[in-house]
């Protein structure tokens, strides 16, 4: 397997890269490459889009790399390569993000990314820390061996509300259920950070790498 991690100037790429390298070595080999070369994406078997920061900033930075979004559309949406979006990288699959104004996303999974905006003052934002998942689609290979109640690390102030509930594979409870994992066809997105979720996170990464959608 040959994994591209998209490098578009988003913060902590090193931790994502190191976690994927660890997962690949535990699976018996493969290569992980940080890349922003649109033409090169065709040479990879898996594509990962990390992301920290605001939806609009991430979209602006992706758009600033000539041909990158078009190449992602081609490789992921048309050629159907396994794709994992992490945190904002997951949110970018939506139609629209509402962080710092209205910004169009890729439109791969219908829905909007909106503020968590709790009514209860005890609910602090960002939603930061370890929270347990409620797995809805227990048959999906991405959640294989990750039973009800596994904890993953979240840090976000906005959340993905999908139009189609069947695109939500897992939720997390933070005052109300928030989308924790989205998926359809060859697409997976996690609101949490698998690269920061210790052994549980590595297991998710290995499940993604072993997935044949």
């Amino acid at each position, binding site marked *: 397997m040959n994994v591209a991690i998209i490098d578009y100037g988003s913060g902590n790429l090193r931790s994502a890269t190191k976690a994927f390298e660890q997962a690949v070595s535990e699976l018996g080999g493969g290569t992980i490459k940080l890349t922003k070369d649109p033409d090169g994406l065709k040479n990879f078997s898996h594509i990962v889009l990390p992301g920290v920061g605001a939806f609009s900033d991430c979209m602006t930075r992706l758009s600033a790399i000539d041909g990158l979004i078009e190449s992602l559309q081609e490789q992921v949406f048309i050629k159907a390569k396994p794709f994992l979006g992490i945190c904002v990288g997951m949110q970018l699959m939506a139609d629209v993000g509402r962080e710092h104004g209205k910004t169009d996303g890729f439109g791969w999974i219908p829905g909007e990314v909106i503020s968590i905006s709790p009514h209860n003052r005890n609910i602090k934002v960002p939603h930061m820390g370890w929270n347990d998942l409620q797995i809805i689609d227990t048959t999906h290979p991405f959640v294989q061996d990750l039973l009800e109640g596994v904890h993953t690390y979240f840090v976000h102030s906005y959340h993905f509300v999908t139009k189609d509930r069947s695109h939500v594979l897992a939720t997390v409870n933070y005052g109300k259920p928030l989308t924790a994992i989205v998926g359809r066809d060859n697409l997976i997105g996690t609101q949490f950070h698998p690269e920061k*979720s210790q052994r549980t996170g590595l297991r998710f990464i290995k499940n993604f790498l072993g997935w044949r959608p």
Partner: protein
Amino acid sequence: MLKTRIIPCLDVNNGRVVKGINFIDLVDAGDPVEQAVIYDAAGADELCFLDITASHENRSTIVEVVAKTAEKCFMPLTVGGGVRTVEDVRTLLIAGADKVSINTAAIKNPQLINDAANKFGSQCMVVAIDAKRVNKSYKIFTHGGRKETDISAIEWAKNAEASGAGEILLTSMDRDGTKMGFDLELTRSVSDALSIPLIASGGVGTLDHLAEGVTKGHASAVLAASIFHFGLYNISEAKAYMEKVGVAVRPIEII
């Protein structure tokens, strides 16, 4: 539900772990990368590196420590101490930190919080506050607790939140290193004034102190150094105790 985070803090001086008693007498407690790996395996919820001498000395050692840690530990890592510019924040994030805490520099120039939050997102901006009781209120101190200011801790925390901080790390100077427990009044008054999470720090000597930081101090996370480093308690004992007194924590992983 969201769990209370237990965060061991490693005070790092020239690439070595130390822990100060009231920020003075330093005792060597080992290699930070090695300790980070131990805490990772033990089920710590986050790790914090505080580069305590960074205000005066070479900063490149902490960047190397962060880079080596990020290769081995797949858990959230906050790094602070001597961070003065947006470029310092970027260097630490690229090395593998998830969050960067700023203290003195943010007080001198609050715009730094805005600038860094705009560039990297609020989620990675922690504002660290060292506070001490002065007469009947709490004032903030800069330069590792050496310089007093006239700024109220609560007002400054609210200001930091408004400027784009994603989290506050609040240390009681009166309690730090004393093992007498958090300053709960300070912790609660600041936490209740904020809508972002607060990490309580300074003074933990028993497991009950950790729990009180949440139940009485209203903190979202608790930070401690000495009780973990010197083997007084381990992370799983801390978690078991918290669970017993009704503070929800993440169970130690079984995968």
